[in-house]
């Protein structure tokens, strides 16, 4: 019973964070400001949904989810950083066209 409630809360919290992040990305036009809600979706939202695997009680699912969790923890900041760096370093004319 407690396991069910905790898993449901984690799932709902993760999906709520993803919804908030997606709404923010739809509202914000600038790429540097858009990176902030994007980091919310690719980081904590995915991690919370994956943490809900603990409460399923299946060993296979928990192992796979732990693998994906470690991978997401490493790659999500990497890709966000790469996008920010590309937005800063790209040629001038494409930056003018974007704004």
């Amino acid at each position: 019973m407690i396991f069910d409630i905790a898993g449901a809360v984690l799932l709902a919290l993760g999906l709520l964070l993803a919804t908030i992040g997606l709404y923010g990305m739809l509202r914000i036009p600038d790429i540097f400001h858009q990176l902030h809600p994007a980091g919310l979706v690719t980081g904590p939202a995915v991690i919370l949904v994956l943490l809900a695997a603990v409460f399923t009680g299946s060993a296979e699912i928990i192992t796979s989810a732990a693998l994906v969790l470690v991978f997401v923890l490493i790659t999500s900041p990497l890709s966000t950083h790469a996008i920010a760096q590309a937005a800063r370093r790209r040629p001038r004319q494409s930056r003018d066209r974007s704004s």
Partner: protein
Amino acid sequence: MPDLVLQIAAGWATLLLFGGGILLLRARDTLHRVLALDVLVAIVIMLLTTLSYLRDVSYYIDAALALALLALTSTLVATRYVTRGGPF
């Protein structure tokens, strides 16, 4: 976890997928598109994870792992393409 919660979560993640599609269609720039695809992959990972909980099998999460690997590679290559005009 009860099936009803997982079904609602899967439906919610599918709605988020539509939101990501709108984000991708509204992108005006290559980097906006790359960012939108990154977010879409995160949403697909959440959807596959929820589907895995719902059906009680583990291989959907393995597919999510492969998708995350591909998303990292494609994001890095696309950003390098924007910066230097080519992937290398």
